[in-house]
């Protein structure tokens, strides 16, 4: 068998593998974009009108904490608690809220993490979302 012959014979499979990788990458990218779009739509959540108590709290917490990594510990804790509260509602998108809560926890620095309020809010969020 010539050295090149193997590559020539395998061209179809190589093309198939590349097509699979490309389409998977597209699907994953779309999934991420879809999550972003859904996060955006949550800001103007129509559920806020249905249940103003928790939805408004979440909306306010997000508004006050645009950058969770650099926010004050009490704002970080408030956002985590609002997310946990929202996740307990019947029609909540828990997967989406869980991702957001995880992102907030990751963004909290070591100094703020030592704050008892933040620590309790993190514990609450972990219990609600099951991380």
């Amino acid at each position: 068998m010539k050295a090149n012959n193997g590559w020539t014979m395998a061209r179809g499979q190589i093309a198939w593998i590349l097509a699979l990788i490309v389409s998977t990458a597209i699907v994953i990218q779309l999934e991420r974009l879809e999550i972003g779009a859904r996060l955006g739509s949550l800001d103007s959540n129509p559920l806020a009108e249905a249940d103003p108590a928790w939805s408004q709290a979440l909306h306010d917490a997000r508004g006050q904490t645009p950058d969770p990594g650099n926010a004050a510990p009490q704002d970080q804790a408030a956002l985590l608690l609002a997310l946990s509260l929202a996740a307990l509602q019947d029609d909540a998108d828990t997967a989406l809220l869980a991702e957001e809560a995880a992102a907030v926890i990751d963004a909290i620095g070591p100094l703020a993490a030592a704050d008892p309020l933040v620590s309790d809010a993190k514990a609450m969020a972990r219990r609600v979302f099951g991380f």
Partner: protein
Amino acid sequence: MPRDQTCRPSDTRFDCQTPWSHAAHGPVHIFAWQFLATASLIFGFWYLWWRWAYSINWDAAWFSLPLIMAETAAFFGLVLFTINLWSPRSPKRQPAPALVSETSDSSAAPDRPLIVDVFFATYDENPELVRLGLRDAQRMQYPHPIDLRIHVLDDGRRPAMAAVAAELNVNYITRDDNVGYKAGNLRNAMDRTVGDFVVIFDADTRPFPTFLTDTLGYFRDPKVAWVQTPQWFWDIPPGVPLHAAWQRRLGRFGGWLGRKVEAVIGPVRFGEDPFGNDPQMFYDFIQHRRNWANASFCCGAGSVHRREALMEAAIRSWTAQIETMSDNEDKRISKMTGEVALFEAVRYTARMGRAREIEFTPFKLHVSEDLYTSIVLHSDRDRGWKSVMHPEVLSRMISPTDLLSWTIQRFKYAGGTLDILRNDNPLTRRGLTVPQKLMYGTTFYSYLSPLWNIIFLIAPIIFLFSGIAPVATYSLEFFLHIIPFLLLNELAQMVGLWGTPVMKGRRWYIAMFPLTLAALWAVVRGQRISFTVTPKDRASGRYLKLVRWQILLLVVNLVALIYGWGLFSQGASGYTLGAMIVNTFWSVNNMMALGVIVRAAIWKPDPDFDLPVMEGYQHESK
């Protein structure tokens, strides 16, 4: 191109009419294949477990359950295929024996040169075609004195064939009837010959000079019953090279561009091997990799048999049939007469009667006589007969070059194999070892594939028309489970089958589903699979009727794609972009598979590139 002409770098082996060389993978290569194959199976098992446990769409169980069952059935086939390809371990070829005593463990074996009978089985093929093979057989060399006896077995009883035999001074054997077709023809010849070894060729087989030298050495092992050599079709159309095709359309610029493209990606041919006849994957991988399990089976032409093994197995099979029939008869008579034990004399007479009724035949009288005979020999535990698949091509023959001949041949293969499964299932047969049962099981199982392939072909169409997903959701989780398996499986097959065009074989495997389904249905209904000689002359014409189901599916796939994307653009429920991409990928893959057989139905040989290769036989016989 004439066979002896030097090939240019851009030529394929089909242009040059040179056989494939054995893909001798080294230990590192084999380890890589085994590692990837194992990883692929582990991830495949994980994926299937997840599918059954978490991803069934119970709201559409009518769709979801058949698909997951099809996936499971296909995965089981993959497991069998992996076991089949696992190891290339094979018996080592030994020097050609000089004396009969060197091929036997019996002290009574004589110290004389070997007698080899060479059979050319023919029925209605052109005698001039047979002449070429006979001449080549006469040129076969052997390093020791050998008694070579060439016989034409003419079931057509044709004077022209007898004349060719007489002209070439070879023996002509015929008979009054055609009982048992090819197997009966061979049996008749066995009765009239006495050679120690029997070589079977078809009418179109042309052996190479080294055929005997390279095969008889295996028989130094007295347990080896037969050696099969690969069948190589040397008339496979090479197709039109990319540069030539573009030159025809775009002039010199097209030719230049085509050459540049081919310099980067290798030779590209339009219409190369249009019927998927190249059997390299079957012989060089599937059959050769059964040597480790002593389970490579005989495929008729190009095989060498130890006469003793054939005759002994025939005697055992014959006596076993007599025993079975007589036992059944004893039971029936006992039931009728109330006698518990029949008189010995009556029983003896009954058995003699059965012995006269049951035909004694070294080749099972069956449409797949070669496969059937292999099973009978492998089942003989007392003798422990072995088979060997020799890796190198030692003969050439011609292939069916129109879809009608191709369909006749493939229907015969599928029907014959499935008929054995139904009537004499080797999996329940005593005598075969577990690896042998697995290997034969792999062959039979592959012919059941239309049962799940049809679901794979229809599934994306259902989604594109209805928006109903066969999985609970096309989420990231789904992709995380399926992609590692698909990637590893493809990589494993690429490495394991390195040197053979896997994609092409896979497409034909899917595309021929109506034919295999028809064979399956015929066997289930108990319909007899008749023996039809595969035509050796090309029939011209279009065979769209033979591929009507594939055309229908192609059209429906296209319509479904347009319909599905239309609904997606309107934001219809269920049509998520992820699901659309998956099903489009799947649907296009299916269409490419179906396309190969539709193309074959309308294919015409190119006068400049295909015909010179396909008509090589005719040129040589002039």
